[in-house]
């Protein structure tokens, strides 16, 4: 797994403990550039902890990892410049307008001033927020806020996009168009790393890692995982696998 220069994300024996509680228990995986990669697991499985370690938000307890070519222990700042991160609450500043939120991200990501105008228009077009650019964000429906949060995470043209349960609280139609957009991004060469517990979303990922209680339960493409877990049940789908794996662990 080492030294593959084409890996956007690579971790080995990554571990995170909070006191005596082991949130992430020595996991290893790699994500290729341009891949849509899913991290699946029930609530409390360690999905958010993993993604936060990869984004340089919290420091791992032990192990090794590189994100966008930078070490997750020693170069969190370089990682933050190279990635975009959207958390499950699409934490925007709700008392500010979309335009003001975008300007904040442009400044913080140190996007050169001369590119601001073009990027602002690009995000507003992409998120279809041109008409509400001066409305207070709080007044916008959740789906619109989600598009804005996604746009803000992409303003600095990151190599890797990290999405932590990006579609929670969003209706199915918005979710579908969200995934269409994610696939477009991936086609442009952006690596997308997404956590979710929706199985229909997981099917959009080229490769998956399923984790439970901080450990990897399965890894591979959706069809590979199904074939591995239920070799004799061709009609089984990802939900069956998920329930099977998580139940087995829980015993």
């Amino acid at each position: 797994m080492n030294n593959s220069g084409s890996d956007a994300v690579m971790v080995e024996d990554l571990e995170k403990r909070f006191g005596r509680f082991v949130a992430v228990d020595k996991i290893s995986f790699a994500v290729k550039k341009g891949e849509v990669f899913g991290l699946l697991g029930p609530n409390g499985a360690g999905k958010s902890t993993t993604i936060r370690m990869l984004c340089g938000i919290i420091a791992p307890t032990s192990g090794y990892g590189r994100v966008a070519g930078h070490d997750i222990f020693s170069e969190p700042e370089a990682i933050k410049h190279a990635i975009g991160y959207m958390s499950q609450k699409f934490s925007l500043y709700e008392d500010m307008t979309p335009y003001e939120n975008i300007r904040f991200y442009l400044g913080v990501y140190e996007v050169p001033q001369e590119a601001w105008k073009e990027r602002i228009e690009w995000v507003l077009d992409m998120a279809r927020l041109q008409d509400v650019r001066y409305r207070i964000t709080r007044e916008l429906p959740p789906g619109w806020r989600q598009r804005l949060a996604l746009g803000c995470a992409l303003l600095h043209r990151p190599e890797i996009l990290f999405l932590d349960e990006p579609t929670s609280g969003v209706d199915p139609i918005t979710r579908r168009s969200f995934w269409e957009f994610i696939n477009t991004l991936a086609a442009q060469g952006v690596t997308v790393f997404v956590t979710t517990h929706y199985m229909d979303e997981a099917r959009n990922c080229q490769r998956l890692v399923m984790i439970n209680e901080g450990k990897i339960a399965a890894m591979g493409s959706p069809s590979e995982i199904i074939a591995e877990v239920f070799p004799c049940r061709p009609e089984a789908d990802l939900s069956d696998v998920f329930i099977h794996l998580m139940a087995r662990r829980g015993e």
Partner: protein
Amino acid sequence: MNPVIIKAIARKEFYHLVRDFRSMYLAFMIPLLLILMFGYALSLDVDSVRTVVVDHDKTEVSRDFVRKLNASSYFEITHHLNDSSTAVRYLDQGLTTMAIVIPPEWTEDLKADRTASLQVLIDGSDPNFAGISRGYITAFVEAYNRDRLISFLNRKGMEVIKPPVDGRIRVWFNEDLDSRNFIVPGIIAIIIMIVGAMLTSLVIAREYENGTMETIRSLPVGGGELLLGKAIPYFLIALIDVLVAVFMGQVLFGVVMKSSFSLLVLASTIYISVALSLGLLISIATKSQLVANQMAILITFLPSLLLSNFVFPVGNMPRIFQLLTCIIPATYFIDILNGIYLRGLGIAHLWPSYLVLVGMLIVLSNIGFALLRREGM
């Protein structure tokens, strides 16, 4: 420290501020109210003591005594009563501050060269006021005695004698003993604590409560950039408040500083920074707006008001409180302001207080950084 990032955060913080009614109220209305309230309502001066007189003697001499009392600007005789029990009722009900009872045969005692006693009752429920009233009446009685003695000796054909010692008392720094002259500098210190510490105690707690702290931690923002960016709007507002307070003190209350304006701006700049770091520190430590606000009131606003030598003189406090005042930033700021406003001192005398404030700023901001670093910033 990247100025572009700091500017982006400062701009964002400015939007939060102007769109939050509570913050705007705290930033501008409270300082104005404080200046007006303290300046007009809270006067610690005793202009004239409300007095009732019970004259049992009813002679020319006693009436002359009462006339002299009334003529002095320190006493205002509101009622002439017939018996002591009514005077007691007046005191009980707070209708008067002082009751003077002249006993029967007062004049006869005087003439017979016996000591004529005069009963003075003072309402001691406000010790400060009572103390001043007692001083006034003691001085008045002494002066009356002296006058009587001198005129008596003169009548006897003796030479005009002069009192052996004549104390020429002059009050320095605040000639008219006008309490406004030291209240205005005190208000400036309080306002800075409110705007600086109480407002900023909310700003990082707010990020935690809204979940936006998570976003900030995912952004390439350093702890120093975050703190500085957040402090800038509040710094400017606090500085504006100081200038308004100085201006209002001068225009409304005629309180003029004797030393240089630039020294005041320098002191305010440092003290505002101390207040801001204290507020931010509370905010990082508590992570909750409600708790942060309570903490800010408890450890910044109240000590600044009570233990800073502003309203309550530190000299009268128990030793433990006196030591406590040494760690309160407002103590040093008010010391500087008194120097600038009343004593007309320059930096040559005030530098120790400046130095202490700078030291506090360094310590507090470093604790803030350390706490943020522990949070992974």
